């Protein structure tokens, strides 16, 4: 305590410990809030962690590279986590193989629409080239999307944010949109929800809120299979969802069991 407390800050702010700890603590808090709100899409833990950490960096005048020196240990795990997607894929192999045809068709159509629509709109809005490229993979599972963005020479951070935003908006929009469109096929709705529900948070959000018509189990499945499409066709993860509805038909009761969990 004899020293200026400021020197302690200078020391800590340059060490990986502080930023690694902060990332985990902020996420744990945001995740707890998300759980408390029954995984409401707007309480997405990733979204809130990002702005909280970002705000803290700005208030303390910490540069992003300094932060990343600590947080890189978390970031690194994205690679192994992508490899680990092989396990849910393997465990759902029967579903995947049974639905392989509709999956492939929906994969192709869904990914083309996802990519073309965003590129055309972004070009029309006059966004800079790197931004357009960063938005293009937004329908792919985030970990893979960031890999694609990097290889396109785009900006992975912008891609990460656009993937998350896409997932949140998808989760919010899907139910009213399907009602409005008069889609009553329960499997199709569940499938679409799975498609929109990028990443864990949003998929679970829909799942736990149990949006009547939107089959939660489908979404859940979609999430568990998430990443499959990206494997087959890197620029599209959307297709993932395909297996879901098919699955649901045969597993109606199991789905409800899952929701309660």
């Amino acid at each position: 305590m004899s020293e200026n407390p400021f020197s302690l800050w200078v020391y800590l702010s340059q060490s990986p410990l502080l930023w690694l700890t902060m990332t985990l603590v902020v996420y744990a808090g945001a995740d707890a809030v998300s759980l408390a709100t029954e995984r409401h899409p707007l309480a997405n833990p990733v979204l809130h962690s990002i702005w909280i950490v970002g705000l803290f960096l700005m208030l303390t005048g910490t540069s992003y590279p300094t932060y990343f020196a600590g947080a890189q240990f978390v970031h690194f795990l994205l690679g192994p986590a992508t490899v680990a997607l092989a396990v849910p894929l393997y465990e759902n192999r029967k579903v995947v193989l049974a639905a392989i045809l509709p999956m492939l068709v929906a994969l192709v159509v869904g990914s083309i629409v996802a990519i073309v629509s965003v590129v055309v709109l972004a070009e029309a809005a006059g966004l800079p080239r790197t931004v357009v490229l960063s938005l293009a993979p937004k329908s792919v599972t985030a970990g893979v999307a960031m890999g694609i963005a990097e290889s396109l020479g785009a900006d992975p951070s912008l891609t990460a944010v656009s993937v998350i935003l896409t997932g949140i908006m998808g989760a919010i929009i899907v139910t009213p949109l399907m009602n409005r469109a008069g889609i009553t096929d329960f499997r199709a709705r569940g499938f679409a929800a799975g498609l929109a529900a990028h990443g864990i948070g949003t998929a679970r959000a829909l799942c736990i809120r149990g949006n009547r018509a939107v089959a939660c189990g489908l979404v859940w499945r979609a999430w568990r299979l998430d990443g499959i499409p990206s494997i087959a066709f890197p620029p599209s993860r959307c297709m993932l969802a395909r297996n879901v509805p098919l699955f649901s038909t045969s597993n109606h009761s199991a789905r409800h069991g899952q929701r309660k969990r």
Partner: protein
Amino acid sequence: MIVSFSLILLCQLIGEVFVRGLRLPIPGPVIGLMLLLVLLFARDHFSLLARGPLGDGGVENASRGLLANLSLLFIPAGVGVVQKLDLLAERGIAIVVILAISVVLTLLATVATFLVVSRLMARASEKP
């Protein structure tokens, strides 16, 4: 646990070497994923492989542990957006609107495709 995690890392490492070596425009971990998948399938056919991380649900448990916290892993990259605040101030609204429109279009296209394909398949299976 360590052995299972080593297997996952090894798959990723081989994937990276493969991708870099051949200069493929695919992320290395995606190749690692396929490799692990092949190993899991191979295990079902060759009991010789069902040991170590591939036996006793070792790699399955390690993978579930990693995937359970998948959201956390996006945060460091996402925070990188602090470097793009000027872009967001200028173009943020346009980006959000574009993403929203694209989501709606993608949802509708996917639902439509699904309905069409599943109806065609149902019809085809009635015929035989």
